[in-house]
C-alpha cells in the first residue's frame, strides 16, 4: 500500500460518498436494521452481492486502464449488473465526484477517456492503476467501501455505538479479503464473465427510497 492508495481509500477523500448510505437508509426505513447485529447481517449480504460485483468491476477497470479507451463496454457491463435505475444513478453520481477529486489530486490524461458520468468502480479502478496500485488493491478498496460507507451511515442515522460498528467491520475483514481476491481473479478475463450476483431487496429499497418523504441520504 503506497500513500496515494491510502488517500484513495480514505473516506475523507472528498468524493461524495458521505451522502450515500448504500441502501442502509431505506433498509432502516423498512425496519430491517435497528441494531449492530442487524447491521452486521446487512453488511455481509451487501459485501457478497453488490460488493463483489463492484470490486470485480474496479479490478477489471484497473487491469484495463493502461489501454485508456474502450470504457463504453465496461460501463455497459456495470449497467447490466445494476438493475435498479436509482442505484445506477447513485453509482454514476459518485463516479463523477470521484473523477472530479482525482482530476485535481492526480491529474493525468488517462482520466479524460472516462466520460462525464462514469460508474464509481470504473473510476476507482482506473485511479488505483494510475497511482501504482494492483488489481487486488482496486478490488480491496471497492470491497471495503461497499461496507464502510453503509457502516458510517448507520452510525449517523441510528446513533449506533461507533466502536461496536468498527468491531462488526473487523469481523467482516476476512470476508472483505476473500471478496477482493475473488474479484481480482476475474480482472483479466472476459468482461461478460464478471460476477453478476444480485441483491433484490437492495434493488427494491433503492427504488422505494426515491419516493420516501424523508430521506437524508441520496441513496
Amino acid at each position: 500500500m503506497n500513500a496515494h492508495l491510502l488517500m484513495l481509500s480514505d473516506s475523507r477523500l472528498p468524493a461524495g460518498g458521505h451522502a450515500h448510505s448504500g441502501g442502509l437508509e431505506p433498509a432502516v426505513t423498512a425496519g430491517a436494521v435497528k441494531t449492530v447485529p442487524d447491521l452486521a447481517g446487512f453488511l455481509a449480504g451487501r459485501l457478497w452481492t453488490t460488493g463483489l460485483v463492484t470490486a470485480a468491476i474496479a479490478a477489471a477497470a484497473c487491469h484495463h486502464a493502461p489501454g485508456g479507451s474502450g470504457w463504453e463496454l465496461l460501463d455497459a457491463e456495470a449497467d447490466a449488473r445494476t438493475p435498479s435505475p436509482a442505484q445506477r444513478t447513485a453509482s454514476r453520481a459518485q463516479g463523477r465526484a470521484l473523477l472530479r477529486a482525482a482530476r485535481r489530486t492526480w491529474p493525468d490524461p488517462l482520466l479524460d477517456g472516462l466520460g462525464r458520468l462514469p460508474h464509481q468502480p470504473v473510476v476507482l479502478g482506473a485511479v488505483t492503476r494510475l497511482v501504482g496500485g494492483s488489481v487486488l488493491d482496486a478490488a480491496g478498496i471497492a470491497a471495503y467501501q461497499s461496507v464502510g460507507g453503509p457502516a458510517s451511515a448507520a452510525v449517523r442515522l441510528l446513533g449506533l455505538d461507533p466502536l461496536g460498528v468498527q468491531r462488526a467491520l473487523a469481523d467482516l475483514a476476512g470476508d472483505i479479503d476473500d471478496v477482493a481476491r475473488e474479484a481480482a481473479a476475474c480482472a483479466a478475463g472476459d468482461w461478460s464473465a464478471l460476477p453478476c450476483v444480485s441483491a433484490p431487496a437492495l434493488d427494491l429499497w433503492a427504488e422505494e427510497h426515491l419516493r420516501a418523504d424523508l430521506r437524508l441520504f441520496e441513496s
Partner: protein
Amino acid sequence: MGGYHGPDQHHAAPKHGRALRLGIGGPVGSGKTALTAALCRVLKDELRLAVVTNDIYTTEDADFLRRNAVLADDRILAVRTGCCPHTAIRDDISANLDAVEELEHRFEDLELVIVESGGDNLTATFSQGLVDRQIFVLDVSGGDKVPRKGGPGVTSSDLLVINKTDLAPMVGADLGVMDRDSAKVREGRPVVFSSVREEPEVPKIADWVRGLVHEFQHH
C-alpha cells in the same frame, strides 16, 4: 484574527464566465430559507438566478421556495447531505458543485446561484471551493450573546444578517449588544439587522447582493 482587515479570505479576483455563487448559512430556524425566498422574489426579475438547497428534509425547502418565490421548478435543485449539512458545504462539496454546474449547464446565462445550507450550528462555514461570497444568518431568539460566541460564520462571513428583530422585545434580546459584539469580532465586515416577516422586500440585503453581482461581473 490578527491585523487582517480585508473583506475575508475569499478570493479577490472575480471569476468571469460563470454566475456569482452566494452561500447562505446559519443555525436551524434562523430564517435562511425565508431570506432565500425573499431574495428570489425581489431579484428574479432583474437577475437570472437559481437556487441549490441543502435542507435535511429533502424537498421541503425547495417546495417552500417554489410556493413563496415563484421560481420555476427547474431553477431549484435539492441536495441531500447524509446527516452532515456542514460536510456538504465544507469538507466534501462535490454534490453541491454538481448541482451548481448542472444549473449553469441548464441556464447558460445565469448571473447568481444561491446555495442555501442545511440548518447547522455556529461552526458551519462554506468552502471557498464552493461559493464566492457568503451570508451567515442568525436570529435574535437564539439570545443576544450569540455574536459574542463567534465561530467562522459570525466572524468572517461577508455579510452577517441578524434576523427576526421583531421578536427582540419578546425574548429580551438587546440589539445594541448584538451590534456591538458583532462589530468587535467582524473587523469592519457588514452586519444587517432585519425582519424578513415585517419587511419582506429585505432592501438592505438585496442591495448588498446587487452590489456583489455588479462587482463580480465588472471587476
